[in-house]
């Protein structure tokens, strides 16, 4: 297992022009802000380069590049150094914004783009599974979590009602 190789590979995909941009999401991103969170996969929101002629975005070159490096697929995942990696189209405007405003950090000399804590929280709120709710509660406790930025994000993306329900369900301070 070597998750750093996954991160290096993402930067290689950008350098090769096969990805326009990306941002790590899910538990691997949350681990940047919180304690390490056990996970089965690496979620990566990707923006593919637009082709001058074709209107449809085509991920085939990415899979060809990874296959040349010996990485195979398992269902919807590409397995890189033992890690199932899921390339996800950004889920709507919130996902687009999360990629756009991702934080760039350096790990072992590699540049890595990570979804900001406030966007991760908003995505968790929108997704709404039990594990997302647990993650949202953890992110709200993150000392550097910017509550006003989070409020602005949920208002911008129509998540106000979901937030009010969440606050009520978990008896939080609004």
């Amino acid at each position: 297992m070597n998750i750093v190789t996954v991160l290096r590979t993402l930067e290689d995909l950008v350098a090769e022009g096969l990805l326009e941009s990306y941002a790590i999401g899910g538990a691997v991103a949350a681990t940047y802000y919180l304690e390490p969170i056990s996970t089965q996969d690496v979620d990566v929101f990707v923006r593919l380069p637009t082709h001058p002629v074709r209107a449809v975005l085509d991920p085939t070159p990415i899979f060809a590049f990874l296959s040349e490096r010996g990485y195979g697929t398992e269902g919807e995942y590409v397995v890189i150094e033992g890690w199932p990696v899921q390339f996800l189209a950004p889920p709507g405007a919130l996902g687009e914004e999360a990629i756009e405003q991702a934080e760039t950090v350096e790990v072992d000399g590699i540049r890595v783009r990570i979804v900001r804590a406030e966007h991760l929280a908003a995505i968790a709120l929108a997704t709404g599974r039990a594990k997302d709710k647990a993650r949202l509660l953890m992110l709200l406790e993150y000392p550097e979590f910017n509550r006003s930025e989070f409020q602005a994000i949920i208002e911008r993306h129509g998540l106000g009602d979901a937030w009010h329900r969440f606050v009520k369900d978990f008896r939080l301070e609004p």
Partner: protein
Amino acid sequence: MTFDLERITASKEARRRSLAALPYGEKLRVLDRMRERDVFLKRAKASPRKAEGGQTR
């Protein structure tokens, strides 16, 4: 051994904070180890002898 819930909770919270304060590179290595453990357990569940590196018939 203690059954003082307050102390247990405080100790867990302190552990969480110290793990959260690790550099990201360190945390990623912890994720690698967690994943290795999960894969081992999954294999052990499917085929106990194989996971131990033993012979299967």
